[in-house]
């Protein structure tokens, strides 16, 4: 079961539809770009999360099982 929302910030254009569909987990910053709760999306919101993913006009949002955590930058 996919459980976290992950945003591609390069693809995102700040349409803001996701925040309307899932206000419990996504809010918009002062410039209209989504700030996403990094925790697992609870079961009762999964269907709404899936809708937010589907409705994003830039396909910038995904539901993923887990995040790759290590970054070797530097």
């Amino acid at each position, binding site marked *: 079961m996919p459980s976290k929302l992950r945003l591609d910030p390069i693809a995102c254009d700040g349409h803001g539809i996701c925040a309307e569909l899932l206000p419990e987990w996504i809010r918009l910053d002062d410039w209209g770009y989504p700030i996403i709760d990094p925790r697992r999306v609870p079961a009762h919101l999964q269907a709404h999360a899936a809708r937010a993913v589907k409705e994003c006009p830039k396909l910038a949002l995904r539901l993923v099982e887990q995040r790759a955590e290590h970054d070797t930058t*530097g």
Partner: protein
Amino acid sequence: MGRLLVSVRADSLAVSQAEHVNRHGPLPLGPDLISTVEASGLRGRGGAGFPTAQKLQAVSEQRGRRAVVVVNASEGEPASGKDRALMRSVPHLVLDGAVAAAAAVGALEIVIATSRGARTERARLATALGERRERVRWRLETVPNGFVVGEETALLSALAGKPAKPTLKPPYPYERGLNGAPTLVQNAETLAHLALIARFGSRWFRSLGSEREPGTTLVTLSGAVLRPGVYEIELGTRISELIAQAGGPSEPLEAFLVGGYFGSWTRDASLRLTTAAGLGAGVVVALPAAACALAEGARVARYLAAESADQCGPCVHGLRSLADGLEQIATGRGGDRRQLERWAEQVVGRGACRHPDGAANFVASTLSVFEHECADHLRHRGCGRRDRGVLPVGAHDA
């Protein structure tokens, strides 16, 4: 004290391979370099301070395509000059490190990425490459000048002939890097340390520095000191000791910027310069008391906003807003410090790379360390001091 810079010639020409081998001995290419590097505790000197052995290991474990080594010598930070200093004076140390790293990860191709402005450095590397006899394929490449170009994925994009902009991770360069091959991207100074660790081992490396942060590091010191330049210091050296090495202050000092433009300000000259203390790529700037810290900071904030790759909304808009707000305070036109602090928090972690995080950190540090100056500017419409141009924002040009 010097390790990397010990063989630098008095006439500042490049050390030839013969002189280099005479000084340090031949480069051994043993199979256990990765474990030696791990035991040495070497961390990347490009800014992020990532353990070098972990990167080597990650690339060496990739199956399928043959790995590539990329020497990140782009040094896009305007206040940094240490990688250039290495390439100009001891190019073979950097090349040795690249060869040792290539052997460790099974790479046969080494790409050296230098910025457009680094003409002297490129010429010296070309001469040095002509003296080498390894069975590796060398490529000496030019990438655009620019702050973000040094970010690993942006660098790889530039080397692949695409715009020098960061890409979304994963995939990480160690999985899929230059033209899809597993790629080890290492800063030039990191490789120079590697060249000496391969020769003298981990205990030797650890004989300077501290248990937690072993070894020496290069620092580019600028600002109001008598002899600005590149210094090699033991990790854990105090700012005051570094300043003393540089002949002391050239006028009364106000504060120090540690870690460059992703770094932080401090007024504490007894601060020990470590990765944990935010030394980053080793930039230290001594700000004179006669300069307006807020005007200097606002100019850097504007530069960082302009250096955004223009890809991620929070970076494009957030950094512009931060620069606008800091400029407003600096020029005595009012301003809202609390809102700037909130914005600085808000952009963290929201770009494809760490550019917004670093820029926001710089602004947040400027607001907090110069809190009284902010209040003064808000109340008295400025401070009467001016921007002295202590913090450089232009590209290097050789």
